[in-house]
């Protein structure tokens, strides 16, 4: 994940500011979350480096329901629960799973040239920009909860592990 260190820094900084700007957390809450975030960054524990997760689960300063409502109201995007989506390997999309962890985003489907992406970082402009440039195709964005995202990423990891094991068996 080290190659996405800069993206993690930028996306989290933007997300933090966006949450404060929308009144979803206070500046003081964000300062506390930033401290935890920087500890994770400096320890190179990049999977743990998420301001969103710190605010939701460590400091409990952010109400995820309010965040999702704000997201729908402001961006007009749909919400999706990845637990009810049949996830597949990302390898056909030529997408690195570490990038998905780094940006809390999963491309879960593709219809013709259009990708369907679920994200927890819709309010973070660097995340949207990074994926738009990477895929260079039309994208339909969906919002999702942090728990749904984490479980989705774990499931894809399991799918990739199974693929790797099958490939090893064939060899």
């Amino acid at each position, binding site marked *: 994940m080290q190659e996405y260190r800069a993206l993690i*820094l930028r996306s*989290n*900084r933007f997300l933090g*500011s966006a949450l404060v700007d929308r009144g979803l957390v206070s*500046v*003081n809450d964000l300062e506390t979350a*930033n401290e935890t975030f*920087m500890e994770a960054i400096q320890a190179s524990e990049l999977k743990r480096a998420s301001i969103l997760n710190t605010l939701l689960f460590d400091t409990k300063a952010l109400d995820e329901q309010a965040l999702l409502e704000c997201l729908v109201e402001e961006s007009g995007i749909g919400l999706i629960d990845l637990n009810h989506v049949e996830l597949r390997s990302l390898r056909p999309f030529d997408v690195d799973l570490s990038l998905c962890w780094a940006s809390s985003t999963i491309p879960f489907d593709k219809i013709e040239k259009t990708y369907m992406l679920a994200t927890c970082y819709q309010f973070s402009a660097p995340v949207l920009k990074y994926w738009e440039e990477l895929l260079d195709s039309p994208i339909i964005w969906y919002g999702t909860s942090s728990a749904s995202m984490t479980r989705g990423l774990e499931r894809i990891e399991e799918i990739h592990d199974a693929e790797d094991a099958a490939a090893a068996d064939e060899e």
Partner: protein
Amino acid sequence: MPYSVLILDDDADFNSLLTDIFEQADYAVTSLTNPLEAIDVFRETEYDLVVADHKMPEMTGSEFMRHCKQIRSKVPVIMVSGYLDNDTIRELIREGVGGVFLKPLNIFSLLERTSSLIEEAKKLESAPHKEQGEESEREIDAKLGFSFRSFPCKSTASTSLANRLYSLRHFRSTLTLIGETGMHYRSICEDIRGFYEGNAEHFIYLSPGTFDHAQVISLIEQAKEQGAERVTCVLLDFENMSESEKKLAATLPKGDTDIQDLGVTLRAIYCVSHDLDSLFEEGLIDEHLYILMGTAEVPIPPLRDCKADIGFMAQQMVVDIAREKGRPQVPRFEKAARDLFREQSWEGNYEALRNTVQKIMNTNLGDVLTLNIVKAAMHGNAGASPRARFESHLTSRQVDLVRAAAILFGGDRPKVASFFAANVNAVASKLQ
């Protein structure tokens, strides 16, 4: 104390009559018959009203009035004459005469008009000068709900800035002000300081090349001695600080062990001229600072986004400079001049505006700053020689250097004056 009246009439008899009339009405009267002498006397003495004959051998009453208006424009003038045609009367009124009385005089009308003119002048003198759209500082404060001086808050951008800063006044450890070059961060931070009452909040200002760990500790100790419970360190021109200064600045919001031992809560305000992503990409701030400074970012609007403010800022600068120079009268920009200010893009922002106003004040001593004066100053800026531009740059840096030295010497003005081989008053003036 009676109001004072200067009477000028070359006709000795009529002069005597006017003098009697005003003295009977309890005015303190100075009677003169020579307009040139009257001008000298008027220049040297404060009067509440002038009464002048229109027809005199040395000069007309109209010419005399123009001299008076140049010296003190607000003193009302009444003209008396044996005969004046309607065109002349209209002309006199257009030029600012407060009343025209023909002989033989209606004494009661004359005294009534005198009284009302003096009252009007006194009211104008005590009330702040207003033009259309101009509000007093108090009115602006009432509108905002708090005091804010670094921008006049006539524009949406500056009003939003004031409200955002006020809403963030309880920031716990870090605030970042991001603006273009030439911004007046110090004034903005002084406004933030003004959001708090009492003596428990202290702000210390740190510029590149002016501080180290020991000096910061010394400044915090001094603040504590003066009653500070919380100290906010303002890091001016942060991106141009040395690596060691940046490293120290990064620890300020929490404080290292030595600083924590002082028992004072610390915060930091970082003032930068580029957005954080640019600074990070250029390696001017590290990851830690990037996140730390990103906690609460406040963009400072460039002057071109606050056009409605510019003329008023320029006028406020005139007030400040007049005060610094000890000028008894504060000159005012005429409206066309203020309009010209707002039409400029002011790439150098506040600093460029201040330099222009300073230049105007250095070369003009009149009470009214006209469109042509402003045009000349601006033209001079655009076409200035490299030497003149360098001089202007050094002048603008002068205040920063004096302030830096003041920090270095712990605010000891005689030491600062000695350092610059200047006198204490000059140093005090710069520090103001």
